[in-house]
């Protein structure tokens, strides 16, 4: 199956016309940010690329948990992003102060239903 992968995100616009599994394509992201990738053939297909220059980053598991180690004590900013997060730019920004202990930080947010309307309603 072939796909027509594209991005209209400001972070990186690209357009990879029909290609298959056996035809790897390469796109270089020069800027940090979110790149939302869609397929022009398959409406339901969507992918998000989070390009970050932060010293510590990671992706949570399916339960929304992530453990980040090695962060030195001091002041910092925690950014949590999720495509359905009901927040501006789908993210929560929180200033944090780290001591030598290992704190558990709970971030809460409302989420969108995430039910996309079908294209043929």
């Amino acid at each position, binding site marked *: 199956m072939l796909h027509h992968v594209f991005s209209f995100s400001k972070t990186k616009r690209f357009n990879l016309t029909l290609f298959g599994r056996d035809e790897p394509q390469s796109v270089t992201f020069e800027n940090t940010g979110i790149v939302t990738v869609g397929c022009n053939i398959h*409406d339901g297909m969507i992918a998000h690329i989070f390009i970050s220059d932060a010293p510590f980053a990671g992706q949570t598991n399916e339960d929304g948990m992530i453990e980040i180690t090695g962060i030195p004590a001091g002041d910092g900013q925690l950014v949590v992003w999720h495509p359905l997060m009901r927040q501006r730019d789908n993210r929560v920004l929180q200033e944090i102060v780290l001591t030598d202990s290992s704190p558990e930080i709970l971030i809460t947010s409302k989420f969108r239903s995430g039910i996309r309307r079908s*294209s043929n309603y």
Partner: protein
Amino acid sequence: MLQLNRISTKLGAIYASLFAAMMLVIALVTYATVTDRARIIVSDQVVASSQVFTHLFVERGADLQKDTDLQVRDYGFRSAVTSENQPTVLSALETLRQRLAVDGLALVDNDGAELAAVGAELPLTSLSAQVSENAYDEIDHAPGVVIYDEQAVLSGYVGVFAPNLIGFVVFGDVISDSDIAEIAELSSIPLEVAILPKRDGEQMTGEVQTLGGRLHFRHEIPALVDEQPIVLELTYPLSVAFAPFRALLITLILVALAGAFIISAASCFVARRVARPISHLAEAADLVRGGKEASVSVNTGDELQDLATACNHMSSEIQAREGELKLRARRDPETGLPNRRAFEEALMDDAEMSSYTVVLAIGIDRFSEIRSALGFEASAALLNEVFESLEAHTGTGFTGIVSGDVLAASFKCKPGSTIEDCTLDLRNQLNTAFRVQGNPIDVTISMGIARLATEHDTPVLKRAMIALDQARASGIWRAEYDQNRYLQTSANLSLMGHLVSALEKRHLSVEYQPKYDLRTGSPIGVEALVRWNDPDRGRVFPDQFIPLAEETGHIESLTEYVLVESLKAQRALQEAGFDLKMSVNFSGRLVGNLKFAQTAMQHAESAVGALCFEITETAVMTNPDQGIAALQDFVDAGIEISIDDYGSGLSSLAYLKRLPAQELKIDKEFILEIDRSKRDAMLARSTINLAHSLGMKVTAEGIENETAVALLASMGCDIGQGYHLGRPMPLERLMQFLTAIIDSGNSGDNDIGLSDVG
């Protein structure tokens, strides 16, 4: 001309108004039903139309949204709108607008802020909150109507996914008046359509309202902005709704009017059929009332015909009975002869009456005696016989019986003959013996004559009857009506009034006429005679007022007055030395009056000498037993009885024999000419002998000369009275008269001196 009191008009009016009222009710019910029905039908149509319209909006909105969605997914479009090159974005939007064929199109970001817009301006500001909300929830919102700048806009929006939601494309299509008109034309009824904002707090009842003659239906339609609900208002004028039924109502009214006219005409016709016979019957009743025969012809075959038949029968019955009554009314019941009325009518109807027509009243003399002798039936038969004879001899005239014993005839004298000759002829024809039940009866008649031509207030028949009375009163068989004499009788009535006052005012006086013993030649008594010297009338003669006093009952007081005066005079005479028998006339009418007899006898007790009551024999004849008994009472009381005026009436020897009288006075009719009439002399002589044989003395009245004195004396007459011997004179004169006789020596030569004094 309309006559309201006519049955036909009444019935017509009643039926027509009933029908009109009925039709009015029908019309009202029909109108109510029809309008109600029309309202329901139209309401249903309005509701249905609103549903159709709503559906149209929803459909078109959905179609637009679907098309927009498809177009927005176009890669090129997405590529263009994310290009951040404004001219590219605008041109992509314009292309899309043209593809969709909408009025306006806009691109907004996730917060509803406008990024670009083409065509008609859209109410993005009011949409932003809703749009941004949808952006968070990625929920669709159905398209709907929004009102912007006083225009209804069918609008909607779809998300632009690239591939995540980056904003919305908002489309709007203005619902123009022509669009609304197009929609309105879809309805089967001409609706007015308006799209309006929903009023605050307005509840959608789902029912059609009637306001000011219009049907209103408001129905909420999908709104684009939840906070700005939209209402579709359909209006329909009721007048338009009822228009199809107006023709029906007009037809109904016309039918009602036509029906009312037909009904009133028909009921008038029917009523006339009823009323006309009634009018005929009323006319017939008027005829019957007027005594005419009436015949009504009614052929309706119902009760009216029965009534008409009954009316006709009634009319003929009345005619028959009236005829019988008329006949009876014109017949004398006793004799069956035409009566006075019939005679008078015949007289009036006679066109041939002329100046020589006379009316005769013919009385049968002594009819009451004939009737009492023969009986009613025979006397009626006699009247019939006389009537027939009269009828036969009067020719073309009319005859009738006008009173118990008086027949009347209109009579035309033969030309050239005098009435005297004609009536004498007639009398000779009638004075004959009529045969009644085989027996001959002698009839004599008296006749009253009245001329038709003479001008009189008194009807001619009445004049004839008066003339008959006048003839009989005069003792003659025939008299013509004497107006002056009749007027005298009416004067009699006033005379009676004067007599009463004369009695009261002493205008009466008593005079005394001497009675002589013819053998001795000396006065032996006097007869008291009443005199009336009226200040106005002068001297009124006893012949005039005595009969009237008898008729009117004044004779009682008159007799009493004379009796009292006479007794006073007798006393005065006695005191003067004259002893005389006092004779007082005692009316035959008073003989049976027991009460007056008592009064008279009481007065008689005071008499100082002999007292004699002079009574006519006829007074006793009417009731002999009672009369004789009354006279006997007087005789028992010492009062002498004298039979007065003997020979003037129907003298009956049988009664004379029974009368307890001491004296008989020969009527002066026989004495006045006794010296010249041998016949009178013979009658006087025989009467004197008769009286003597019955033991009575005889007095002769009306002695006018010496010859009579001598003659009567020779016949053996006891007493004489008359102008020759002495006139009636007042008491004073009588005194002088008597004194003079004595002074003259009281010789037998009694004629000397008497005439001097008389």
